[in-house]
């Protein structure tokens, strides 16, 4: 498994908000190693078995922690992300609708501090059987040896669901996020799966917009030896329209599904045209 493993010790920023509270309960129920919560002004309160602190630094002063998951609303998310990046190794930003200029600053700062940022606008990460840092429904996932990396939440569920029902399972599923500017790129996650002894094959789920899939194809050609199966959503999407995700837009000639499918097929990636085809391929492994 990758990113989320037995060494993960995570705090929750925005733990007392509606989303933060609901999903913290779910994550604890899945036995995820959540160690504390942070909400400024609510230091000392209890949340189930957890203590709430006023800041990230207040947590790092008293315990060992390396990861944060952020649920704070978009207007405050940049502040929360900078706070986490300054202290921790991995930051998962669930929040949707963060202005792109804020995201660009967050990513630049993360690069300076050598912190991994997942998201924003991501369902998060799940390593089935070990824990989940995110909002995905855990019952869809099963432990196994397929790694999934995706720009889309519900489409991850669709593929994971079909893999689980076919009797196979997932090592780790990573949502990199549906925004135009995100932290983790496909290539970084694919490399982690390549290096991960628990992962035998990878499923990459892309969609229209940007050139992340084309960049991934270049990377796969040079660096990835394990099998990669890909699906690209949005073959039928019209140009110039944002299709749900802020990042899912064909701009001019760039970001079409056709261009991504071609780039991936050229480097030997098996691109399927529907989810059930992917399951049939995986069954043969």
């Amino acid at each position, binding site marked *: 498994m990758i990113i989320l493993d037995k060494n993960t010790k995570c705090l929750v920023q925005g733990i007392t908000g509606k989303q933060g509270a609901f999903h913290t309960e779910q994550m604890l129920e899945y036995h995820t190693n959540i160690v504390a919560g942070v909400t400024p002004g609510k230091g000392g309160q209890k949340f189930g078995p957890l203590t709430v602190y006023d800041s990230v630094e207040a947590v790092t002063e008293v315990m060992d922690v390396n990861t944060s998951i952020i649920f704070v609303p*978009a*207007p405050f998310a940049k502040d929360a992300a900078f706070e986490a990046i300054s202290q921790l190794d991995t930051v998962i930003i669930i929040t949707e*609708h963060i*202005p*792109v*200029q804020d*995201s*660009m*600053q967050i*990513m*630049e*700062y993360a690069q*300076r501090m050598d912190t991994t940022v997942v998201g924003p606008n991501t*369902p998060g990460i799940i390593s089935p059987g070990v824990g989940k840092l995110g*909002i*995905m*429904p855990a*019952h*869809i996932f099963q432990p196994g040896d397929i790694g999934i990396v995706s*720009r*889309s*939440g*519900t*489409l*991850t*569920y*669709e593929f994971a*669901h079909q893999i689980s029902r076919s009797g196979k399972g997932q090592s780790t599923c990573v949502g990199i996020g*549906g925004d*135009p*500017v995100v932290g983790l790129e496909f290539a970084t996650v694919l490399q982690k799966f390549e290096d991960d002894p628990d992962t035998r094959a990878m499923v990459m789920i892309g*969609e*229209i*917009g*940007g*050139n*992340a899939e084309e*960049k991934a194809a270049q990377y796969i050609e040079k660096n990835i030896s394990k099998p990669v199966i890909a*699906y690209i*959503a*949005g*073959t*039928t*999407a*019209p140009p*110039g*329209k*944002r*299709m*749900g*995700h*802020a*990042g*899912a837009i064909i701009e*001019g*000639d760039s970001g079409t599904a056709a261009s991504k499918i071609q780039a991936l097929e050229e480097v030997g990636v098996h691109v399927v*045209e*529907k*989810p*059930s085809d992917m399951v049939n391929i995986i069954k043969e492994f």
Partner: protein
Amino acid sequence: MKLYEHSAKKIFQKEGIPIPPGEIARSGEEAQMIAEKMKKAVAIKSQVLVGGRGKAGGIKFTDTPQKAAKITRKLLSTQIKGEAVNMVLVEHKAEIQKEFYVSIATDRSSRKPLIMASGEGGVDIEDLANNRPEKIIKYHVNPLDEFLPYQAREIARKMEVGSEFISSVGAIIWKLFQVFQKYDAHLAEINPLVITPEGVLAADAKLDLDDDSIYRHSELKNLEEFESEEFAFVKLEGDIAVIGNGAGLTLTGMDMIKLNGGEPATFLDIGGGASPEIIKKALNLVIMHPPVKVIFLNVLGGITRADDVARGVINALKDTPWDVPLVIRLTGTNEEEGQRLLSNAGVSYETSMEDAAKKAVEICKSL
């Protein structure tokens, strides 16, 4: 949110980027009055949000107010690439001595703002990038550092604008970057930036603002371009309405319709955690789109609960006279309860997205 040229120019003017004098007209008479006041040749420019309006005949020039009226009436009765023209911008026709190109956009790949500039303006920038990429100057701005005026002048120098224009063109590039940041733009573009006897001017203006930043720009809510939307909803050419929970799953629903030989009529993403009321609203919204013959509702519940979806569907069927066939795929969180509710109400459902898409296309073809 894309802005009309005239709205973008108002912002430019406020931030110190020079523009030609001009006013909006919504009728031939208004255009004639404006042209009379100007006592000069005018450009009459259709205000639309689609690109390429010049080539599509949306910009005309004239030197008499009577013709301005006539041209305006004609433009107001046309469509440009399917978009109706509701107003025109009547402005001084610039006496162009030289044209340049400047834009600032979010570069998704490097995750930084990217300034693109060229000594050759008034061109299709994608054509230029494909055919003569060496003519485009590219400059990434570090999002945590200040962009300084000398850096903008350096871009102007590389554009070969000529020494006498380095300062004025540099200042406009610098101010355009301030606009890009201050207004949270995805794109700020001047094409062309022109040298005229009156100085350097932004002859055109394009601004596409980040919808997610509107909360910190309350003044922009007054713009006519502003629409508050409950759903991510896109109308398409086909006849099968596609509704789904989540952008990727909805897109895939469309692709599955196409794969089975059908044509999607809508993209409608109900988002995560939709309540029965939202489901009902979504169904009623696509029904209002006349080409829709069949509805394909594709739900794999994560945060969205299948029982909530079932309740929404049942309520919608109860309250609306309903003659559009509905194909439902319902699985995920609380699926047993959702499927039981549908069965009790006599509504059939599928559990596989691919089977459901196939069924929707078959029904549509049989109508």
